[in-house]
């Protein structure tokens, strides 16, 4: 009996190895039509305010891949938390492994951290969720919860000290009778008719997703930096979350790649 189970286990893991593959996602940060350059480059928002960006980073989580027929592959939750930072080139390319072989036409994810993980015990907050480590500047200790999207910079229009602006958007709805705003938003990115083929671990396709940081300021609510130089949790944060839920768009699918390292090199990501 034991023997049979052992052989069965081997067989299952062997089969799995052949039935899954990896993909990479590269996030390309822009402001409108221009590349995002920290500190040096000046931009204008829809309101006409001039600004520079000193920091731009965000969490994505709860990733799903969508097939043409609408069915989805849901990534195991533990493996689907990523902190993407403009200041850290390596963080802008993520690799998802053990994806079942197949053809996918879109991807969706949560912008930020789901409410369960926001409320989970400290032992489940590892890696990019470690509040003493990677997540140290993406967490509110006084109103327990992760910051989902963070952008900081300067603007001559800012009325805050040193012309600084800070947009720290979080809040997951609270737990129990602790109700807060719920700024959790989702993004679904269609590959525009192209097909993502997951084959194996040697052939690793790369999806490039454009993240337009100016969408925090422009959208249903055009943010006047003079009026709202600092937004961290007040009711206005919901307007910025509504704006940024449209900041992701499909920018290309690289099919001719063979492995992750070469991919990164070819795309100049190293």
């Amino acid at each position: 009996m034991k023997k049979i189970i052992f052989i069965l286990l081997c067989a299952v893991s062997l089969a799995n190895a052949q039935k899954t593959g990896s993909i990479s996602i590269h996030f390309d940060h822009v402001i409108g039509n221009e590349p995002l350059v920290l500190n040096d480059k000046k931009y204008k928002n829809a309101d006409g305010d001039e600004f520079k960006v000193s920091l731009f980073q965000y969490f994505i989580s709860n990733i799903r891949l969508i097939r043409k027929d609408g069915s989805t592959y849901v990534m195991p939750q533990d493996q689907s938390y990523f902190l993407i930072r403009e200041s850290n080139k390596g963080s802008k390319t993520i690799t998802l492994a053990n994806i079942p072989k197949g053809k996918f036409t879109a991807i969706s994810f949560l912008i930020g951290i789901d409410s369960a993980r926001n409320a989970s015990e400290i032992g489940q907050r590892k890696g990019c969720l470690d509040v003493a480590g990677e997540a140290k500047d993406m967490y509110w200790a006084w109103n327990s919860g992760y910051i989902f999207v963070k952008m900081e910079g300067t603007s001559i229009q800012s009325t805050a000290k040193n012309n600084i602006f800070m947009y720290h958007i979080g809040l997951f709805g609270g737990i129990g009778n602790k109700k807060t705003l719920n700024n959790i938003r989702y993004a679904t990115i269609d590959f525009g008719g192209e097909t993502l083929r997951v084959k194996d671990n040697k052939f690793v396709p790369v999806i490039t997703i454009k993240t337009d940081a100016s969408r925090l300021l422009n959208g249903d609510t055009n943010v006047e930096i003079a009026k709202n130089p600092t937004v961290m949790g007040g009711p206005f944060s919901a307007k910025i979350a509504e704006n940024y839920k449209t900041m992701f768009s499909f920018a290309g699918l690289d099919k001719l790649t063979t492995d992750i390292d070469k991919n990164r090199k070819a795309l100049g990501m190293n």
Partner: protein
Amino acid sequence: MKSKFIILVVSSLMYLGVACSKDDSQVVKPEELFTVPANFPKPLYDFSKNPVTNNGFELGKALFFDGNLSRDGTISCAECHNQAYAFTHHGHDLSHGIDNKVGIRNAPPIQNMAFQKEFFWDGGVFDLDLFSIAPIENPVEMDEKLGNVLEKLRKQEKYTTLFQKAYGSKEVTTERFLKALSQFMLALVSANSRYDKYVRKEAGGTLTTDEFAGLEIFKQKCASCHAGELFTDHSYRNNGLPVYNKNDTGRQRITAAGDDSYKFKVPSLRNIAVTAPYMHDGRFYSLDAVLNHYSDGIVESKTLDSLLRTNQRLGIALNKDEKTKLIAFLKTLTDEEFLKNKKFGI
């Protein structure tokens, strides 16, 4: 035959692995550092994720008293949470932290933490294990980053030894650090006041006529908010204080809800006689001042608690004699054993 042998090796290795990890968690034998007092409700803390052990408690205590948790080594948790005053900042209306900076709130007592589900005057933290990050990282309290604290601890043999004892290995992680502090705080149970002994019908549990009369007045006029054996219903209320700091809107800072503005947590009254000054901003230095506020000082506002606005009158009707008796009763909530327990000090 060969494959059978491999299975045997694999399964015995697996068995060994399980056994080892089991051993690790049992290196530390749980002791009775935390028990639920007979007159208390069920704890709200989930002990299954962090059982209180003697070595975990000792580690937590060492951390609680260590200034290294602050940026410049000067401010420990104990600075604002002094045992003799039920772990409050005696004599300070607002807590006084690093570089002589002053916060916006009065430091609440640390006691009976296992029976609370939300922390701080505004309830912004919902898990004791997440609580300690806030004072450590608050720029006017300890102004340090948690990651730096862990780095400092890793370099000290004293701590690698304490972590080894508490958790079976020297590894200093966020989880271990925070859970050890929780263990120390969970053990801070105050339930041996004269009032407790009276309720539990234990030796020494006698109340004087005035104290007993005070208890009866308390039940009629105070216990709807200061409810149960913890003397709080864990709610957030606007108790009619004139607003001194417009920016501190209390519960509204957390929920962003207009009807939460200027609401603060109903505090427990255990050890109340030693935790002056009172209120979220420490504005009252005596229990007399507190009772005078409730009888004559209530200010009307949109979110004023409805219990303080009854019979076309603001506040709670209390005459001088009733106030004297109430204060006599409140003093029976002082738990000398807790305030002097050597186990909780260094």
